[in-house]
C-alpha cells in the first residue's frame, strides 16, 4: 500500500510532476559518483536563481537544500537500481523539489520513522541528540540531513512511498517545499 506522509496529496503531486521547470535523472553510484551530488545541486541552484533578484543568498540556500536531498536519495538508494530523479518546480511563491529513488523496505521504514518524529518533537533537540548519539555510537551516517534543512530553512517535507510489486523495494519520493519572498 502506498504511504503518504505530510500534507501533499496524490493529485497535487501528479500535477507537479507533469510540467516541471527542470528535472534531471541519472544513475548515481554512491562510491564513484559522489562529487556529482555537489555538481548537480549547484547547477539546480544556479538554474533556479537566474531569475531571482537576491541571487547569492538564495543560491546558497538552494544549493544546500538540494545537496542534502540528493545525498539523502543517493545514500538510501538500492544498489542495483540507483537511478535518482530530481524535479524542480518554480511556483509563484514557493520552490518545490522532488527527489525520487528506489529503496528497500528497511530504508523506507527509517524514513517514515524520521518523518513521524518531526510531527511530535522539537526538531532542534532532535538534531542535537542525533549529533550526540552519532559520536557515542560512532555511527557511519550523520542522519541529520533532512532534519537540518527542515529546521534551518523553513521548508516543509512530505513523502510518498510506493511499494514495487513482488519485491521488497519501494519508490521513495520526497517533496520539499520552500517558500520565498520574491
Amino acid at each position: 500500500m502506498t504511504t503518504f506522509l505530510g500534507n501533499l496529496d496524490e493529485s497535487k503531486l501528479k500535477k507537479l510532476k507533469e510540467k516541471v521547470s527542470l528535472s534531471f535523472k541519472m544513475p548515481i553510484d554512491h562510491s564513484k559518483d559522489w562529487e556529482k551530488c555537489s555538481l548537480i545541486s549547484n547547477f539546480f541552484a544556479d538554474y533556479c536563481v537566474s531569475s531571482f533578484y537576491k541571487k547569492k543568498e538564495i543560491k546558497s540556500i538552494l544549493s544546500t537544500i538540494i545537496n542534502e536531498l540528493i545525498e539523502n536519495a543517493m545514500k538510501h538508494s538500492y544498489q542495483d537500481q540507483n537511478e535518482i530523479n530530481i524535479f524542480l518546480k518554480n511556483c509563484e511563491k514557493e520552490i518545490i523539489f522532488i527527489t525520487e529513488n528506489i529503496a528497500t523496505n528497511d530504508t523506507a521504514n527509517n524514513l517514515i520513522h524520521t518523518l513521524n518524529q518531526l510531527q511530535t518533537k522539537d526538531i532542534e533537540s532532535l538534531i542535537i541528540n542525533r549529533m550526540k548519539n552519532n559520536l557515542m555510537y560512532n555511527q557511519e551516517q550523520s542522519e541529520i540531513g533532512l532534519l537540518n534543512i527542515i529546521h534551518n530553512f523553513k521548508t516543509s517535507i512530505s513523502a510518498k512511498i510506493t511499494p514495487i510489486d513482488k519485491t521488497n523495494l519501494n519508490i521513495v519520493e520526497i517533496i520539499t517545499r520552500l517558500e520565498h519572498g520574491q
Partner: protein
Amino acid sequence: MKNNSLNFQMKFLPTDIISTWKRASLSSIFCSSLFSNNQQKEVFLSNVIATVINECLELVVKYGAKKTENYTLTCNKTNNITTITLSFFLQFQQISLLKSYLKKIYLIKKNNNFESIIFTKTFAELGYAIYSFIEDYNGSIKIDYEKKPRNVTTILKTQITLNLNSKDLKNDY
C-alpha cells in the same frame, strides 16, 4: 566498460530558458562537467559537449513550437560513442527546412565552400553549428518526427539525434 559510461536525462521548459537566456549556457556547462568529472582525460570531449549541448538548447528555445511542454535532452556515452538526443516540438515546414538545410550543408562540406551559409536567412547561425559539428568533430545528425503531418503548420514531436565518436575528437594542434 561500466566505468566509462554515463547517461542522464534532463527535462526543461523552453519558456524558462527564454526568460533567462543564460540558462542554456549554464545547462550546457553543467552537462559537460558531468563528462569531465568521469574521466580527467576527457577535457576535450567535455568542451565539445558543452558547445554542442548549448547549440541544442538554443535551437529549441528559438524554434521550438510548444513552449509550455517539457522538452528533453538525453545524453548517453558508452566507451567512445556519445549520443545526444533532443526531443521537442517543431512545425512540419521547419522540419522539412531543417532537413533540406542539413543536406545542403553536407554538400557544402564536400565542396569545401561554406561562405554561403553565413548569410542565409532562416537558421543562419545554425548553419555554422551544423557545419562545424560534421566537419570539425566528424559527428552525425539524424532528424526524426512522429506521425504524418496534415499540413505545413502541423506541430510534430521531433527528435534530433547527434552522434560523436571520441576517437575522432583528438585535439591535433
